[in-house]
């Protein structure tokens, strides 16, 4: 029966923000739900659950992924980074600092996804042009800011790394 298959439990091991977790999860459990509700890491948000808005973006084995489009079991053995792992204690990551300095967030719901996408963007292209930043972040939706200050914040970090 299909039902018993997708609710079947499987044990997974993941490393999230440097911490090892071993958990038993139903095979159909979304990675996003696993991170948020099983691990209690609620900085990762769900805005659409169909892979468009980007609010649930995290880094998995060095690549940005949408945690709403993956099952938790697909992350078995993976190294994950969420927003909670970005700062060094209370010392903000340069992108967090730049978002603050540039008023790059309003309601904050999409911010986590933007930060993780920006981390990925700058990892791959430390000196992006404005157009490259816009394209790099075009898979994340924000309804509050109109994007301009988010783009400025990413530009500011790119400029810092240049100097």
């Amino acid at each position: 029966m299909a039902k018993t298959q997708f609710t079947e439990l499987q044990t997974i091991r993941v490393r999230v923000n440097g911490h090892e977790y071993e958990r038993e999860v139903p095979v159909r459990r979304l990675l996003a739900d696993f991170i948020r509700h099983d691990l209690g890491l609620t900085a990762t948000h769900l805005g659409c659950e169909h892979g468009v808005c980007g609010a649930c973006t995290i880094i998995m084995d060095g690549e940005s992924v949408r945690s709403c489009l993956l099952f938790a079991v697909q992350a078995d053995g993976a190294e994950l980074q969420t927003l909670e792992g970005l700062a060094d204690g209370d010392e903000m990551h340069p992108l967090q600092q730049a978002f603050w300095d540039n008023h790059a967030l309003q309601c904050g719901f999409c911010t986590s996804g933007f930060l993780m996408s920006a981390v990925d963007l700058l990892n791959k292209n430390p000196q992006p042009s404005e157009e490259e930043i816009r394209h790099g972040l075009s898979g994340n939706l924000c309804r509050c800011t109109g994007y301009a200050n988010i783009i400025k914040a990413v530009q500011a970090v790119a400029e810092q790394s240049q100097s």
Partner: protein
Amino acid sequence: MASSQGGKRVNVSSISPRVEDTFTLSGKMVGAQVRRVEDPRVLLGKTQYVDDLDLPNSLALAFVRSPYAHARIVSTDAAAAQNQPGVQLVLTGADIAEAIKPLRVEYEPAKAPTHKPCDWPVLAQDKVRFVGEAAAVVVATDRYAAEDAAGLIDVEYEPLEPVSDVEQALAADAPLVHEEWGDNVMQTLQAEIGDVAKAFQEADCVVSERLTTGRHMALPMETRGCVASFEPATDTLTVWSSTQVPHVLRSHIALVLDFPEHHIRVVAPDVGGGFGQKGHLFPEEAVAAYLARRLGRPVKWIEDRRENLSASLHAKQQAVQAELAVRQDGTILGIRGRFVGDVGAYSEYPWGSAFEAGHAASSMPGPYKTPAFSFEAVSVATNKTTIGVYRGVGLPIGVLTMERLMDLAAQKLGLDPAEIRLRNMIRKEEHPYTTIIGAEVESGSHRESLQKALDILGYQERRAEQQRARTQGRYLGIGIGCYLEGTAPSSAAFASMGLNLGGYESATVRMDVAGKVTVLVGTHSHGQSHETTLAQVAADELGVSLADVKIIEGDTNAVPYGMGTWGSRSAVTGGGAISRASQKLRTKMLRIASRMTEVPDDDLELAEGMIRRKADATPLMPIKELAHRILVQAGSLPPDEEPGLDATAHYEPPPSTHANATHIALVEVDSDTGKVTLLRYVVVEDCGTIINPTVVDGQIQGGVAQGIGTALYEHALYDENGQFLTGTLMDYLIPTAIDVPQVEIGHIESPSPHTPHGIKGVGEGGAIAPPAAIANAVADALAPFEVRVDAIPLTPERVLGWIEQHKAAA
């Protein structure tokens, strides 16, 4: 980032990157460009939105929703669902008919004689009226189990003929959305002010236009949701909701559940955007609150995006017919407008969906001196999702209509579009100016904002550029949109419409023994930066640093009864209530300080954490010492002084607090594809005294982005059967980082003479004029094709269709 503090310029980011530095700035705070207090917790991932709340022993809800636009419910078979593992309870409309009252918007009949109320059952009773309407609810141990079971509930429907658009709804033999009405008209508002017939007779030039706007929606990135919990020991129902209006929610949950309001606590935690959509009590919230009490266990409802797209609230689908009568020199003689709103199946609770069409109609004259005006606003029910307030409500439609007419008149008279506007705008020296609809415009900068926006754009150079481009087969267009917005509506404004809702706001300001200030205020920030801006107001009123002020909102057990955040109201009304409460507190502090220092209280002030002599700024006593004396060493107080250091004020805003702005769009239209590209976008806004320029710029940029969505992309589509077609974010498109230019923003400050600090509202402003400015720009770009821009959104398909129509006719 530079920070201005009473003339001093401080580079905030160079002080230190540490979190607490924003809080230690001192000096005059209203007007200062300080970083947001709320940001560190967001950036560090420490916010708590409603779905982040996982209460022990919690259950999850899933709603069964109608696949039909209009159908009779024949039967519901929930047996299979009830036997599913984890399922606790399944309820249908029949099960809760007695327990939860329907949501019913009532206006005062004397003020709104044509308004027809309707019941919005929290779960459908005998029939469903839109695709997505909740017909049953499943309660299960988690959301996966609840959704599995919801899929097994078999509702048998007998489809009825749907009312799929306004034209059909108004036909004589139309099927009825609400049978008891006898037709499909929710409300008709009519007014004639001045002699409109004479104005049109005497006009040298009359222009008219029919316009349609697309059905679209607020689409906050966080969907709707709530957690409800009942504590039998204290008979207390607590609802954490992603809401803009915690007290409104509390009162109306009490009403529909018939449960005493003083046993209900509503908490709005961090809320991921609202834009009007979350300013309501929804059926799902009422059901969740009921179930928590019935089951004695916490329940959580988090809607998915498809539900948000199809079953929350839509907005702003109207059909407009309007005419403008002018003299040869462009002087306005009269305006006529008929606005027909497609309000969907029910009425947004508790405001009423008929609000929008009237708001659109009455906004037409805007900043233009208009001697005669008549309008009709008709709100028509259809089998679609209900219409609700969304940023700017009717204004974007009224402004689009008027601004299109102004361009058409200018074109016909051979006037420049800027010139015809300048000739008709209220002049600075005419304030206070009473408009044709009876609003007193207390101050403003209509002509000045237009002139400044033209200067920022380099208007003449762009006109020359446009000419050059045309010779190369490129189609550039410049479009202007100007508006006047009555922000922060007062209680009386609602009462005049027959709507029993307050426009006032409440605040309690408390000082503790260390001289630090806690502000409890009834507004609610879901992105608007209140923890910063309202703290700036309190800091100035009480002479303390920003670090010494904490703003608390959103918990009805903590904050005094207030109306929440919507309608560009919070800076005016929340700020006003905080100012008034602070003044009460200050008066008491200075009176007691006067008796201690033997300096008359009129000669004392609170500044920089000190009681100072006003004349020479001599510090006499730290505020914290005075606070300690009043709160702790109360035995040494003069016997006629009450102890205590808190004060509450309820602030009713003035009948009119008018903000204004000019938007100018520079677009390029690709004549081969119909794609509209925004090359530049200029806004010159005037929201009176600015509390925090960074926050105002952020509101403008974000509002413009939403307005761009309205103008170019967003359309919640139904087919002729009332089937909803845009149920994902791949079908319903909002602007992305590629689509929104950096808005070039200029400011003019015309303080209100009526509000504390001269503050006016700004939250909605950015979203009001983009449809007008962009539609005018596209019409201007396509002038060689003689295109009539009479509908938004301006999708490539639509624009290309107009171009090809012209080519076919030529």
